């Protein structure tokens, strides 16, 4: 459960102020699929960044299962990102020098302790689940755009996060591939995963339980 109240975010560039978010409130229940729509520059990415802790808002509060993000120190924030939050970006950010399976297991590689057999197996299952069985040892450069995005989704799932933030995950894919990715994500909400997804596409947005529209930094519906 994530709750945001009265979020404001202002960017200052070249002396002018851009109010990217103005008094935005939004809550997402466990297992709920929320889609954010809106024109370019309306503040969708900014909202997603704030909700996913990548950006600190200028005002307002965000609570993750009741815990206030503003009061968390760096270590708690890292733990939150590691254990509860997953992210998928428009351009599938994979490490180009790691294989598909290594990219999926990347969240587990944050210490000197080798990734356990169990976790490697789990990463394998996540890859199979997104339909990449047999391509585990390929480098990102040897995969198509859609396949790379699947790897990114598998990586987002591997930590058993509670909420997935996806910023135009289908933006760089063709219609058919985009639809497959959409169905994949939809399937995960059945396991209790919450999803907040930004998309321009009405068809994709309709897959969500709820569509939120943004305009000029505000939620309008």
């Amino acid at each position, binding site marked *: 459960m994530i709750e945001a109240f009265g979020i404001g975010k202002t960017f200052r560039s070249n002396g002018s102020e851009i109010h990217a978010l103005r008094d935005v409130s939004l809550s997402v229940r466990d297992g709920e699929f929320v889609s954010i729509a809106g024109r370019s520059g309306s503040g969708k*990415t900014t909202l997603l*960044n704030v909700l*996913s802790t*990548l*950006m600190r808002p200028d005002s307002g509060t965000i609570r993750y299962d009741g815990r206030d993000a503003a009061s968390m120190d*760096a*270590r708690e924030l*890292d*733990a*939150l*990102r*590691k*254990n509860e939050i997953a*992210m998928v*970006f428009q*351009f599938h*950010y994979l*490490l*180009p*020098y*790691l294989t598909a399976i*290594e990219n999926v*297991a*990347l*969240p*587990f*590689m*944050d*210490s*000197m*302790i*080798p*990734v356990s057999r169990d976790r*490697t197996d789990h990463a394998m299952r996540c890859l199979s689940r997104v339909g990449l069985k047999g391509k585990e040892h390929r480098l990102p450069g040897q995969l198509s755009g859609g396949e790379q995005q699947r790897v990114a989704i598998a*990586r987002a799932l591997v*930590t058993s996060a509670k909420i997935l933030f996806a910023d135009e995950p289908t933006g760089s894919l063709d219609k058919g591939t985009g639809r497959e990715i959409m169905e994949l994500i939809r399937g995960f909400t059945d396991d209790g995963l919450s999803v907040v997804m930004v998309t321009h596409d009405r068809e994709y947005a309709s897959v969500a339980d709820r569509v939120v529209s943004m305009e000029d930094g505000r939620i309008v519906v």
Partner: protein
Amino acid sequence: MNILTIPFRNIRRKPAKTLLLLLVFTLGVVSIVSLVSFSRVARHSLEQKLWAFGPNILVFPKIEQIRLSYGGMNAGNVTTDVRFLDERAVLAGIDAIPNRGNVRAVSPKLVTVAAMTVPGKASASGADSNVGVVGVLWDREKLIKNYWMPQGRYPETEEELLAGHAVAARLGLKPGDRVGLFGREMLVSGVLEPTGSDDDGVVFGNLALVQENAGRRGKLNFLEVAAICAGCPIGDIVDQMRAAVPDAEITAMMNVVEQRMYSLDFVSNLILAVSLIILFIACAMVGLSMMSQVNDRKREIGLLRSMGFSKGRVFQIVCFEGFLLGVAAGGIGYTIGFVASEKILGALRMLEDASLTFEPAHLAIACGVFGLVSTASSLLPAWKASRIEPSEALVSI
């Protein structure tokens, strides 16, 4: 798979870039290793050559002297008593000093005056000639006076003598001549070329024989010592000898000594300075390259941060990459540097009296040291990497 997989794979990703960086760093290590081994060998052969200047420490018995100086007139030193050193005690004392390893040779001496009969000459002048006879231990004396060049050869038995140039000229001695000394017949086995020192005016013979005939068995007038030490001040050696042989007067010929030290120190300081400059340049290269890497990889780092990697982890990843480079450069550099300096020194014919040995321990030290140096050069880029804000890195495409 663990955190080190990331830097390992990244190094492999850009083999050309990594190789280039490795090459520069390796070149630095190569030149340092060659310079250091070159300096070790050069220092060694320089030391060898410096011996040619003879003794630099003198050991005398303490003599009660009264300096007579009255009304501006210096009457010189009046020796009230001639004293002798005990051969066994002095040699044992000097052998026991901590810096014995830096004492190359200790040559004990007893000086006496004796009448020498030169056959053939005797009838002409009709009298024996008095000569100064210095008793020495030949194996030790030869080490100290390694600039001596006798005609003929060095004495081998106690019946043989070596004559200084001046005394040989005065008495008309040639190698192979037989003379009478100490009431027995002796062979002049060699005559010294002029040395320009007191050595020209005396005859050298076996120490025990001279002691016997001078009635001073086991006694010495003085000792000449040749000591050199690249790292330690000669003053220490003198102090140690003073403590070991309290009844002796130890004098160092400081000028000679300091001159020698100076030339050694100059060479090593020069090499140290050059090595440091090379190392500094190599470090700057590593630092700059890591910095540009960090800038190129902002998005990757942002991604890691968004997955919950802490700032510390990002810092470690960059540092470890630097460490890997340093260890590789250290290992390759040491090996190449070793081979190169062996070739160069061999070509310069400097390996004749010194040798280089490949030591695994030194290889390990080189890897460790350059690993650390390279890690240190990566600290700033690593710190910069850890400051990267995930939102900015991921959003600004």
